[in-house]
């Protein structure tokens, strides 16, 4: 469903992605690992359509169609979701208002009726339950004064509400203690299905103990330099990245 072909992208004069190839099929979970500065977050931003980056060559296909010309919200309407590494604060906008507005925007764009209040509330309750969050959370200002763990849970909560076809989790594990990590992973696993795909970007093996990937990639200097199964992640945990760097250079 997602196919990235020889993708090159730069910010200013600096080329960050230098020919990424990646194919994600429905229902698959892919992990992308790699040392700092290898281009992991850039890759997620470019897929989501952030304008700071310029795609200089290559393509991103969604169900075989290029999405490079689509605005970020149009990509979201297709069913793309990005769980942000650093979710922003939007003062004065409650979590429930935000999620409601987002879900109805997506539904409207797909030609569906907006959800009525009671259906919306029911859906929110279910998503809260999945993430072991209490109702008071809904009326808080979006990400304002949230702890690191709360911010990440809020991302997964929104994911549960929006039910994307492809979700990219950008270092969702960073800044999480072990309990929060378990809950977040539980949230993600609860959403796994033959139709939903995930791209999990992480530094560490830790998260992958909970969200078990089908495929593991190593991104280094803007290219995917190694691909394997979940044992690759375990190798990296033990041996670090140096051996891969040596292999490449």
């Amino acid at each position: 469903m997602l196919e990235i072909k020889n993708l090159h992208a730069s910010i200013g004069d600096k080329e960050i992605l230098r020919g990424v190839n990646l194919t994600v099929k429905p229902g698959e979970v892919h992990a992308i690992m790699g040392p700092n500065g290898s281009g992991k977050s850039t890759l997620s931003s470019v897929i989501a359509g952030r304008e700071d980056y310029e795609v200089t060559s290559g393509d991103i296909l969604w169900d075989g169609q290029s999405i490079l010309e689509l605005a970020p919200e149009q990509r979201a309407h297709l069913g793309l979701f990005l769980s942000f590494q650093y979710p922003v604060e939007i003062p004065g906008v409650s979590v429930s208002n935000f999620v409601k507005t987002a879900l109805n925007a997506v539904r409207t764009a797909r030609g569906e009726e907006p959800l009525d209040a009671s259906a919306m509330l029911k859906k929110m309750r279910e998503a809260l339950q999945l993430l072991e969050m209490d109702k008071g959370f809904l009326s808080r200002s979006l990400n304002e004064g949230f702890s690191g763990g709360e911010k990440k849970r809020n991302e997964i909560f929104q994911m549960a509400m929006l039910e994307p076809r492809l979700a990219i989790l950008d270092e969702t594990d960073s800044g999480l203690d072990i309990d929060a990590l378990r809950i977040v992973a539980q949230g993600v696993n609860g959403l796994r299905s033959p139709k939903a795909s995930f791209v999990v970007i992480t530094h560490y093996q830790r998260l992958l103990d909970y969200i078990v990937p089908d495929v593991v990639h190593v991104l280094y200097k803007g290219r995917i330099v190694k691909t394997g199964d979940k044992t690759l992640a375990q190798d990296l945990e033990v041996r670090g990245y140096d051996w891969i760097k040596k292999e490449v250079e």
Partner: protein
Amino acid sequence: MSQDELLHEVTASEYKYGFYSDVETDRIAAGLSEDVIRMISAKKGEPEWMTDWRLDAYRVWKEMTEPEWANVHYEKPDFQAISYYAAPVKKQINSLDELDPELLKTFEKLGISLDEQKRLSGVAMDVVVDSVSVATTFKKTLAEKGIIFCSMSEAIQEHPEMVKKYLGTVVPKSDNFYAALNSAVFTDGSFCYIPKGVRCPMELSTYFRINEAGTGQFERTLLVADEDSYVSYLEGCTAPQRDENQLHAAVVELVALDRAEIKYSTVQNWYPGDSEGKGGVYNFVTKRGICESHAKISWTQVETGSAVTWKYPSCILKGDHSVGEFYSVAVTNHRQQADTGTKMIHLGRHTKSTIISKGISAGRSHNTYRGLVRMGPRAEHARNFSQCDSLLMGDRCGAHTFPYIEVKNATARTEHEATTSKIGEDQIFYCQQRGLDMEAAIALIINGYAKDVLNQLPMEFAVEAQKLLAISLEGSVG
């Protein structure tokens, strides 16, 4: 979309109320003199005391000079080029059916059907087009409670003792240049009296519209809430799109007697001029209320219109334990300039005031908050809290804050907080990633930012105000 394209979109968004209604109008030749004032007074069949009051104001005004201290720049109006009286010809309206159909169409375009207002929302409404009040709904229902809600002209005829007693007591004729001008030439406006102990059962509302070219609008609003009464009042304003500048110099006086409460809300959407700053309304307004003991006045304003705004709704907290509040969202876009804020004058003991001001600047506009908090020598234990936030969109606009604080009593306390922020691209991208387009993202962020103020508006108008904020800022991102 690049920033330049976005900023271009700003300039492309249009004013939605810029139509002109072809209504037959009775207007007098441009210019101002004692004769013109006598003519206005005569046309309105006013008693002699009123004519004299106006002439007195005119003489004061002639000696005054236009204020220049505000942080706004504009070509000064030629006061001799303005027609000071314009009225839709058909007068003496007893029911809505008798209104000029063109006028009714106007109201429909504005999104207000008087009939519907009457039936559905339970809002009593006075409509002022150009200089004259054309329709006041719900008069009967209000009369049963002893509430007087009518045009100022009618009040001068029907309730002269009350007008004489209160007119000019809060904003004296000599208060400032525009207040003096208004006192001399005001042609209509609303008058409202809430008797002792009465809680007004519905929102009272005045809708102002400048229709004719080359006219000014000088309305005068006087609202008296007698002891232990309560009223919530809302005014809305629009004007046609014109290349020349139109002058709006209104005066609003509020009197809250012991333990009375007045909530006064404004949604101001006068034509702001085009993207190059051509045309638009000069909005030079004096609004002030006086609170007797334990009384409360709350000003809420959503300011999106006008080319130049100069306006400081204020409270004189005269009585002990009286309360003043000011909640404001001021949006400027394109070349708009706003210099607005409030004055909280604490005279009595244990008086309390709150100021929440949210400025939003976009395009090449300038948005200024100017506020005064004064604690008089008698104001034992008076308290003020002020919060002035500015939000910038793009890199060609400006936000300015001028807080003045004067404290003459050692037990008084004031707090002032101020922030300046930009709508971040991060915030917009975040919303877009969740499926909102750029406009919806901005509307959401702005409404969140202004929430503390919007929450103060009566429900049915809060929704309208939210939409208005979104329209005013369509496409403006940086």
